[in-house]
């Protein structure tokens, strides 16, 4: 082992690779910060108009409500992106802490805290990996016999087989539970009502939905998705929202009417004096269904009662919709997966019809009516109306908003645009283009970002072209060696050209990098000849410099043989003294500046010159 390690350490190629990795890491970190500064500056400068989308009317409200004569403001869905929030997201340290904090990231794929919420020691819920059970602690008001009330702390253990107040192996084990985080938002209401509603969760490993009733202390298991059934790969259920960072914002307002005591003759009105046409709950609620996001970007509907996916019928395709593909710099994408998006938000809409004991009293609300009425309705009918879905592109420069009706059909769609007024004409510019060129100094920053990307090794830039889609969108912003958000990588998503054309035009994006690599390779080649590297070594260095550009050049300068060259007396060029023959003219070694004497007194090498006596005799005769 020891000779192997020693041999490795003293081996020249090993030294080159080691030095190369050190240089690559340090250079990549430096270039990351340049790109980061350019990117953040562009985000801050992005024109505000290019960040918003508005669809009015929303298209999901029943016509009798939308077209009510009293309506002064139609239903509207509004989506906005906040690219300056990308700053923290780009940095892994923030992502690390935020995702591990209780409540953590609600997104799929990334790390998530096992503590679903934490209010205090007596009010929290977490997944205990050891036992495989969900532990829920809460306090409940209890009326005592003497009519006083007290708070009782309850600790429940929930497994696939049931609920218990003591930890019990017979409850079974969850392995990879995904809960509906929307339930966390609503639990306050439930607690106020004196009980907890049902929590639906999906276990990735067990491939099954579960409905947990904390009041009844029951667990209902839905049908198991087939092991080989790859049509359904749920990654998030209920509240579909990717990040804890507010990278995008989605909001819906219902049609609004004027508050009755407002003077109808008064011209103009303030929005503060308007109210929704019917009581509206702004929580994400899909009525009788639960939204389930698939890893393909498809959004399915799960029946809350049966815990089965809504089946496909001639009237209903069984799908609530898809995450819309934002229109990036090089064009839109037909379909996107959650991994490819920096953020997404989905807002379902449901209409609730409440029937009371008095048959003439029928009230309609948007969403869950729980807290609108003092007394509970006798019967409730819930109808799913559709959903709004907003997607933020991988590089955070484009937002798409789509509206899907109850049949899952896309009825409206819009992308972020910047409206420009030039010479009496208005033009719409894609928000991605506005991001890079739409604000003062943006072109300069964009060129800065572009040039910084071109200092990256060409081979890694080309690799980024092929591997961009393999990176999860957020982690792409933290990538060091590959650049999934570089111009060349974004070009990979351009569907407007065929594969070959797309690749060739992508190479044009890294032309400065290629030119730099060629120039540096020429310099390395010339120096390698001077320094006397072998033909093979020279060839490797040229290839390496063409592939790795500036990194390889710096590595070469650090690892080239540090030998002072001497002038060859034969050819007059500089040669290496550690070589037996001149590597230029192949002449033998000769040191003209040293003039040693002719004679030698070495053991066993006494010379006998026959001719000297005869020469002496001749000289005497003369």
């Amino acid at each position, binding site marked *: 082992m020891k000779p192997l390690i*020693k041999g*490795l*350490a*003293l081996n020249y190629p*090993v*030294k080159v*690779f*080691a*030095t190369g*990795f*050190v240089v690559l*890491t*340090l250079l990549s*970190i*430096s270039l*990351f*910060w340049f790109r980061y500064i350019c990117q953040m500056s562009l985000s801050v400068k992005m024109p505000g108009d290019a960040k918003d989308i508005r669809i009015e009317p929303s298209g999901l409200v029943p016509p009798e409500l939308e077209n009510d004569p009293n309506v002064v403001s139609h239903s509207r869905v509004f989506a906005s992106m906040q690219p300056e929030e990308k700053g923290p997201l780009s*940095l*892994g*340290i*923030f*992502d*690390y*802490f*935020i995702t*591990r*904090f*209780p409540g953590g990231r609600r997104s799929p794929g990334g*790390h998530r*805290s*096992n*503590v679903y919420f*934490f*209010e*205090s*020691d007596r009010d*929290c819920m*977490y997944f*205990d*990996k050891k036992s495989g059970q969900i*532990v829920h602690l809460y306090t409940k008001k209890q009326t005592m016999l003497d009519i006083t009330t007290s708070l009782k702390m309850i600790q429940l253990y929930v497994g696939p087989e049931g609920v218990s107040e003591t930890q019990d192996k017979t409850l079974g084990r969850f392995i990879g539970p995904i809960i509906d985080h929307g339930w966390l938002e609503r639990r306050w209401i439930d607690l106020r009502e004196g009980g907890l509603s049902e929590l639906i969760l999906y276990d990735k490993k067990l491939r099954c939905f579960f409905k947990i009733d904390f009041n009844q202390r029951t667990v209902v298991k839905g049908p198991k998705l087939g092991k080989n059934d790859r049509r359904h790969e749920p990654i998030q259920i209920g509240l579909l929202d990717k990040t804890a960072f507010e990278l995008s914002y989605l909001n819906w307002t219902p049609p609004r009417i004027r508050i009755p005591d407002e003077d109808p003759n008064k011209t103009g009105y303030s929005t503060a004096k308007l109210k929704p046409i019917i009581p509206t709950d702004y929580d994400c609620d899909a009525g009788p269904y639960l939204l389930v996001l698939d890893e393909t970007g498809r959004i399915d509907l799960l029946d809350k009662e049966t815990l089965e996916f809504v089946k496909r019928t001639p009237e209903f395709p069984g799908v609530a919709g898809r995450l819309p593909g934002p229109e990036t710099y090089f064009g839109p994408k037909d379909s996107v997966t959650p991994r490819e998006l920096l953020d997404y938000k989905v807002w379902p809409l449901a209409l609730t019809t409440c029937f009371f004991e008095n048959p003439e009293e029928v009230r309609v609300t948007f969403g869950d009516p729980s807290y609108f009425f003092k007394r509970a309705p006798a019967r409730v009918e819930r109808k799913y109306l559709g959903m709004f879905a907003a997607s933020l592109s991988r590089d955070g420069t484009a937002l798409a908003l789509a509206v899907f009706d109850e049949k899952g059909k896309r009825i409206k769609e819009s992308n972020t645009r910047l409206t420009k007024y030039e010479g009496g004409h208005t033009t719409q510019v894609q928000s991605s283009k506005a991001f890079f060129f739409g604000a003062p100094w943006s072109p300069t920053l964009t060129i800065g970002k572009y040039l910084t990307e071109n200092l990256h090794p060409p081979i890694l830039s080309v690799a980024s072209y092929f591997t961009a889609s393999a990176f999860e969108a957020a982690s792409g912003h*933290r990538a*060091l060696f590959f650049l999934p958000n570089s111009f060349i990588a974004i070009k990979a998503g351009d569907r407007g050209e065929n594969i070959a054309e797309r690749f060739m035009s992508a190479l044009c994006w890294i032309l400065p990098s290629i030119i730099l690599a060629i120039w540096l390779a020429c310099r390395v080649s010339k120096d390698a000849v001077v320094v006397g590297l072998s033909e093979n070594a020279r060839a490797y260095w040229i290839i390496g410099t063409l592939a790795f550009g500036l990194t390889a050049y710096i590595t070469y300068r650090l690892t080239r043989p540090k030998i002072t060259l001497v002038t060859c007396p034969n050819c007059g060029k500089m040669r290496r003294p550690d070589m037996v023959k001149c590597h230029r003219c192949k002449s033998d070694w000769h040191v003209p500046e040293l003039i040693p004497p002719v004679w030698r007194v070495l053991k066993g090498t006494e010379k006998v010159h026959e001719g000297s006596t005869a020469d002496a005799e001749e000289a005497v005769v003369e």
Partner: protein
Amino acid sequence: MYALIKREIQDHIVYFIGAAAFSAVFIIISISLIHRYNPKEPPVFSIGLGVPAVTIVIFGICAMGATQMYLDRTRKISALLSTLAVSRSRILLARIITGILAILILLVPQTIAAGILVRVFTPHIPMFPGMVFEISVVVFLMAFACYCIGLQTGWNSSALTPSLGALFLTCIFIPLILIKGFGVHIVVILVLFIVASLLRTWHTFMTTSL
């Protein structure tokens, strides 16, 4: 080997004392500030205190590496040791082990204290499972990586190159924690960087004239 390590420790005792003192001070500060901890809020204050503290520590470790090599070069310590019953590889290995010991003296007490404080002051639920360990591992690897940077830049007879070079490279390298956080990715990068740096240092030390 023991004699070589002992020699290194004695020659650079000031770093060991500094490491122990810093560790003690940091533990005391952590204990006195733990009452501010609110499990419902992100530990912004801790991060705000911890990041500059970690940075100072890592600069100190880098300086130790640079100083070890620089003093060796100027005082011709390895030139003497190489003529005794010691090989160059052992000299360098002893030096590296000394560096690791200094980092451990700095970090292990803090890790243990942090683990205890987290256990005592956080609710008895798996709130931050493995976080103390993950952060400690990354900080250790980052410190060792910067120490390796110091070893590389320190082998110089001019005082300027080791100090400025080490400072400059460390300033570039430490923000890697900001970029990557404390997860698996940074561990992989740090391990590869450490291996590469050590190979480079090894090669330089084994082939240079003493």
